[in-house]
């Protein structure tokens, strides 16, 4: 809709704005007969009626924007009688706003249209008292004569449809926001579910450990007594058999080894049930590590394993049960030794770091184990051994999981290590790459106000 220039208004009927007599005189310069006059009058009345009925306001302007005639809806829009309207400049009578700002008279769409700019059609705001209306303004230029050009302005109140449109937009936006919220919630739920699953796995693990502990303490007595009998029996036979009977001696040796193996399993299991309180002392992890290394050093040198120590300066003390932590460290070191039958290199790194929400190990039992921002002592033990396949890596801390041949391992070593580290409120993790080596990381909380060095 909107902008067009009628080259010439050719018929009388189209020039509806003027007084009928004027129309006839100005357009035809001839005196109409009474009959013709009556017909014209009738036509004009109908046109006026039509313009009154049509909701759009129509205004006839001269080239300067002066109002020559307006339809009744315009009077209703402005709220003034005809006498106050005709002769007035439309730009003054109908100031328009766009995006909350009042348009300068030179930027008024009607002005622009009169100046021949074709982009002068659109919706504008109009403030009628308290009320802000949205008007769609269309301008048609009318070439009245060679010299004179007028304009017909059609104004439609689109406040309601705009409002409806706005409401629809808001509803659509609200719907989009709601959908977005739902998606976010779903994502959060999924995350929470994953975390819960992780926690559940940990709980199951913890329950498994507790059950093993209970079972172990329950059956230990019942198993160790018969083992005691067997061993005394073997000792008796050993004393009776002459050393010449090599085969019998060998059989007894095997029996004895079997008893020791069974006993070791029971003892390992009991380590779970022994929830004797940890004897915490403020210790230097590097010193505990050195003591542990001292106990197994011979095995390392025998296997041609070199050791590198990278200890950060001014390491804080941490609360440790030295004996139990030694158990953990020795276990890890011996595992590394077994992974390097041809020799290799072991690197021991101890450092501190502040824990951030993304720091490794902070997710498990978050808040329970570490507070974010708390200092942690990180002890890494790396080897250049065979490495551990991914599918095995996830199970190494599970009780009874072992890759060693029957009789060599009980599958409790690392499970016990983890239990011990967790009772220190720490986290033990393992990373490995096949053919390149394995790194075990123990992260321990540094007590608040820990004295450096």
């Amino acid at each position, binding site marked *: 809709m909107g902008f067009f220039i009628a080259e010439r208004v050719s018929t009388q009927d189209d020039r509806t704005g003027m007084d009928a007599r004027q129309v006839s005189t100005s357009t035809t310069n001839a005196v109409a007969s009474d009959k013709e006059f009556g017909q014209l009058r009738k036509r004009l009345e109908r046109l006026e009626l039509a313009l009154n009925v049509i909701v759009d306001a129509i205004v006839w302007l001269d080239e300067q924007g002066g109002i020559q005639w307006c339809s009744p809806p315009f009077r209703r829009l402005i709220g003034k009688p005809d006498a106050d309207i005709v002769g007035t400049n439309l730009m003054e009578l109908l100031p328009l706003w766009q995006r909350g700002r009042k348009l300068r008279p030179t930027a008024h769409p009607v002005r622009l249209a009169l100046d021949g700019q074709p982009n002068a059609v659109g919706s504008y705001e109009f403030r009628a008292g308290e009320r802000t209306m949205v008007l769609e303004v269309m301008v048609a230029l009318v070439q009245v004569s060679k010299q004179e050009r007028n304009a017909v302005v059609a104004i439609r109140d689109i406040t309601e449809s705009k409002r409806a449109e706005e409401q629809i937009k808001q509803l659509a936006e609200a719907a989009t926001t709601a959908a977005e919220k739902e998606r976010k919630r779903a994502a959060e739920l999924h995350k929470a579910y994953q975390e819960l699953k992780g926690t559940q796995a940990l709980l199951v693990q913890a329950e498994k450990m507790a059950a093993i502990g209970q079972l172990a303490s329950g059956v230990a007595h019942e198993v160790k007594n018969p083992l005691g009998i067997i*061993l005394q029996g073997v000792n008796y036979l050993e004393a009776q058999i002459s050393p010449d009977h090599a085969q019998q001696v060998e059989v007894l040796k095997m029996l004895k080894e079997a008893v020791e193996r069974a006993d070791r399993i029971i003892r390992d299991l009991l380590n779970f049930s022994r929830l004797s309180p940890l004897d915490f002392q403020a210790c230097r992890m590097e010193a505990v590590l050195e003591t542990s290394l001292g106990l197994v050093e011979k095995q390392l040198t025998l296997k041609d394993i070199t050791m590198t120590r990278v200890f950060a300066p001014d390491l804080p003390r941490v609360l440790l049960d030295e004996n139990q932590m030694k158990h953990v460290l020795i276990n890890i070191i011996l595992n590394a030794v077994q992974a390097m039958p041809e020799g290799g290199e072991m690197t021991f790194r101890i450092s501190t770091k502040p824990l951030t929400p993304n720091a490794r190990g902070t997710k498990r039992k978050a808040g329970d184990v570490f507070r974010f921002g708390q200092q942690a002592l990180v002890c890494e033990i790396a080897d250049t051994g065979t490495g551990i396949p991914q599918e095995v890596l996830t199970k190494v801390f599970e009780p009874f999981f072992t890759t060693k041949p029957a009789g060599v391992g009980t599958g409790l070593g690392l499970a016990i290590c983890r239990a011990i580290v967790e009772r220190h409120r720490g986290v033990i993790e393992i990373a490995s790459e096949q053919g390149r080596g394995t790194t075990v990381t123990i992260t321990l909380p540094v007590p608040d106000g820990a004295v450096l060095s």
Partner: protein
Amino acid sequence: MEKKKILIIDDEKRFGELLKLNFELTKNYVGLLATNGAEGVEMVKAHKPDLVLLDILMPGQNGLETLKQIKAIAPNLPVAMVTAVWREEEAKQCFEAGAYDYITKPVDFDYLKQAVLVKLL
């Protein structure tokens, strides 16, 4: 050299019997056997052993109680506890009551012999 008398108090009769056999094989010891605490205390009174190997977990009167009774009769009689499971609190109580050792089963006889020897040399 006169044979030393070792009293074994253990409700596991077969364990006691084999232990007695092993001691007697060495020719230096005589083994005495009791399968409960009360019987053990009576045998301490009657036979005046040189050393007692005492189990802890027994039906009726337990090893700790038995130990206390033995120590009341013969304060200088060396008593070593021989039990299946090492329990820290229990071990502490036994040492406080006068036991000189706390050994867990299964135990190699060679080790046990050493443990006995330290008190009978």
